[in-house]
C-alpha cells in the first residue's frame, strides 16, 4: 500500500462513518427562536420520511434575516415580517411563508387576589406607558365591573432582549393606542417608558411571579406549560377573549379576506368573532429563485408537508395551526418557487 492509497482508504473509512449516504440533501437555515420547538420537531419527523437533513440555528429573527440576505443560509425564519428596506437589500426576491401561529398573553401577580382580570388594548397600552399606575385605576375598574381590585402599585415587566414576543405585543399596543405608537413604536426591542427588563420568557415570568403588583407578557405556550394565570383581552369586536389554540387560529382565519399576496401581514387586533387580538404568524423566508435547485426542490417539498401533515404537531407544542384558507394560498405561492 502506498502512502496515497492509505490516505485514500482512511478518508473513505471516515466518509463512511460520517455521512450515511451521499444522496442526502443538506439544507441550512437560521432565524427566530420562538418557533424553534415546532421546527425542530418538523425537521426530525421529516428526516425520517425523506433523505433530507435540515439544520436550523435559532439565533433570532434579526440574525436570520441578516444571514439570509448575505446568503450564508438557504432559508431564514422571522417573527416580524421583513421591512421593504430589508427586502430591497436582499440579492433576490424573498417570499414570506407563514408556518404556525403564536400568541402573547398578559400575566399578572396581585397579592391576595384570585379572580381573573380583563384587559383592553388601550388600558394595556396605558399601563405599559406608565400612565395607569394603580390596580384600582378607574379604567381597569370599568372593564372589571364588580371586581374589587386593590390599590397596589403596578410594576411593569417586559422582555429585556430583542424578541419576536415583544414585536407582537407592541404591534398590538401600537394599533390600539396612537400615543403608544408615537412614543414607543414597533420593533423587536423598543425604548420602554417604564418597567423592569426580564431576560427570556422565564425571566419575565419569574419576575412577575415574585413581584407583588406586577404585570408582564409572555408567549401563550409558556403560560400554558408553566400554568401561569393570564387575563382575557378585548378584541376589535368588543368581546373579551381568552387566548387559546382555537381563538388564535380564528384570528388568522379572520385575516384571510385581507391577506396580501406576500403574506406580510400583521393579524394583531384582527376583526371577527372569537378572535384573540394579540396573535401573530411566524414566517419562513425563502428566495423565489435560489441558486441551488436541488435544495430548492427539497425545501418546497418539505414546506408542503409542513403545511399539511406537519400542522398536526402544532397544538401539542402550544402553537395554533394555520387555517385551511391560508394553507391553500400558501400552496399556490410555493409553486412559484423555482425548483429547476
Amino acid at each position, binding site marked *: 500500500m502506498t502512502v496515497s492509497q492509505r490516505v485514500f482508504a482512511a478518508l473513505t473509512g471516515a466518509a463512511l462513518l460520517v455521512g450515511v449516504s451521499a444522496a442526502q440533501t443538506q439544507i441550512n437555515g437560521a432565524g427566530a427562536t420562538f418557533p424553534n420547538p415546532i421546527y425542530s420537531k418538523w425537521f426530525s419527523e421529516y428526516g425520517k420520511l425523506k433523505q433530507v437533513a435540515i439544520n436550523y440555528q435559532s439565533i433570532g429573527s434579526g440574525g436570520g434575516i441578516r444571514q439570509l440576505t448575505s446568503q450564508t443560509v438557504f432559508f431564514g425564519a422571522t417573527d416580524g415580517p421583513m421591512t421593504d*428596506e430589508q427586502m430591497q437589500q436582499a440579492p433576490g426576491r424573498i417570499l414570506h411563508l407563514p408556518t404556525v401561529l403564536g400568541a402573547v398573553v398578559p400575566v399578572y401577580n396581585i397579592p391576595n387576589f384570585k379572580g381573573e382580570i380583563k384587559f383592553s388594548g388601550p388600558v394595556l397600552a396605558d399601563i405599559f406607558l406608565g400612565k395607569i399606575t394603580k390596580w384600582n385605576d378607574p379604567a381597569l375598574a370599568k372593564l372589571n365591573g364588580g371586581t374589587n381590585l386593590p390599590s397596589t402599585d403596578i410594576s411593569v415587566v417586559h422582555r429585556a432582549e430583542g424578541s419576536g414576543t415583544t414585536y407582537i405585543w407592541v404591534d398590538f399596543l401600537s394599533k390600539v393606542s396612537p400615543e403608544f405608537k408615537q412614543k414607543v*413604536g414597533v420593533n423587536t*426591542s*423598543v425604548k420602554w417608558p417604564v418597567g*423592569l427588563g426580564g431576560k427570556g420568557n422565564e425571566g419575565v415570568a419569574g419576575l412577575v411571579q415574585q413581584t407583588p403588583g406586577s404585570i408582564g407578557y409572555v408567549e401563550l405556550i409558556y403560560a400554558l406549560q408553566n400554568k401561569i394565570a393570564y387575563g382575557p383581552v378585548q378584541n376589535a369586536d368588543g368581546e373579551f377573549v381568552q387566548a387559546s389554540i382555537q381563538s388564535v387560529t380564528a384570528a388568522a382565519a379572520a385575516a384571510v379576506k385581507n391577506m396580501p399576496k406576500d403574506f406580510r401581514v400583521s393579524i394583531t387586533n384582527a376583526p371577527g368573532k372569537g378572535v384573540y387580538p394579540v396573535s401573530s404568524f411566524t414566517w419562513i423566508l425563502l428566495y423565489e429563485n435560489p441558486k441551488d435547485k436541488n435544495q430548492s426542490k427539497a425545501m418546497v417539498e418539505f414546506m408542503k408537508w409542513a403545511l399539511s401533515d406537519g400542522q398536526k404537531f402544532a397544538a401539542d407544542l402550544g402553537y395554533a395551526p394555520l387555517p385551511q384558507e391560508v394553507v391553500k394560498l400558501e400552496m399556490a405561492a410555493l409553486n412559484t418557487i423555482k425548483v429547476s
Partner: protein
Amino acid sequence: MNSIFKQRELGFRLGTGAVAFCLVLIVAAIGYELVRQSQLALAKFGFGFWINDIWDPVSGEFGARPFIWGTLYSSVLALLLAGPIALGIAIFLSELCPAWLRTPLTFLTELLAAIPSIVYGLWGIFVLVPIVRSLESALPSSLKVLPFFAGPPVGVGMLSAVLILAIMVIPFTSSVAREVLRAVPMAQREAAYALGATKWEAIQAALFYARTGIVGAVMLGFGRALGETMAVTMVIGNNPQISLSLLAPQYTMAAVLANEFTEAADELYLDALIEVGLVLFIITLFVNAGSRLLIWNMNRPATVRKPVPAAAAVGASA
C-alpha cells in the same frame, strides 16, 4: 558548539517573541474590527454617543451613557464589597489557617470560580432577588430619603447585581492574592518577628511587601466585573437609566450587547451595538492601563528602600 547554543538561544527568543507579538496583533485587530464595523454609528453620533442618554431602536437614536454608568457603578461597588472580603480570605488562608483546613477551604473558594455565570443568574433570580426584595422592603423610611435608597423595592436592580458580581469576583481576587502572599519570602516575616512584632504586625509587613500583587489581584476582579454579562443581565432589571439608587433597575454594556445583538436587523442599530462593544473595549484598556500605572508608581519608591518595610510596619504600630 558555542554557535549552536547561540542559534538555539536566538531561535527561542524569536519564537517566544513572535507568540507575544501575536497577542498585540490580536488586541489591535479587535480594536480595528470594532471601529470598522461601527462606522455608521461613529459617523452619525460621533462623541455624542458617549454622553447621550437615549437608546431608542425604533427611531434610530442611540447613546451609551446609561450603559457606561451602569457598568462602572456596578463594577466599582462590587469591587468595594468584594475587595476586603477577598483579601480577608487570602490572609486567613495563607497566614492564619490551620493546615488541615487550608486545602478544603481553598478548594471551596476556587469552586465558586468554576460555576457558570448562567447558574449564578438563575440562582440570582430565584434566591437572591427575593431576599434582596425583603431587605429593601424592610429599609427604615429615614434611610429612604438618601438617593442611594430611592425608589420602590422591586428586588431586581443595582443591589442584586452588585451582590452577585461581588460573589463572582471574590474567588478570582482571593486566589491570586493568596498566591501573592504565599510568595512573600519567609525572611520578611521572620525579620518582623525578630524585631518583636506581633502576628498582626508580621502580616502587615507581608501585605506591604506583596502590595503590587494584591493590587493586581483586585484589578483582575475589576476586569471580570466589567465584562460579566449573563448573571448581571438576569438580575439588574435592564432599564437604561442613570441613578445613584441601589434599588433602581439599571443596565450594563455587556448586558445590552447580549440582549439586543441577535434581533438587531437594521444597519445603524447593529453598528450602534458594536460601538457599545468598542466603548467597553476602550474602557477596559484604560482600566488596565490605569492599574499598571498604579502598580508602577507603587514600585518606584520601593526599589530604593527594599529592606525597610518590615521594620517600618513595626515602627509605625509601635
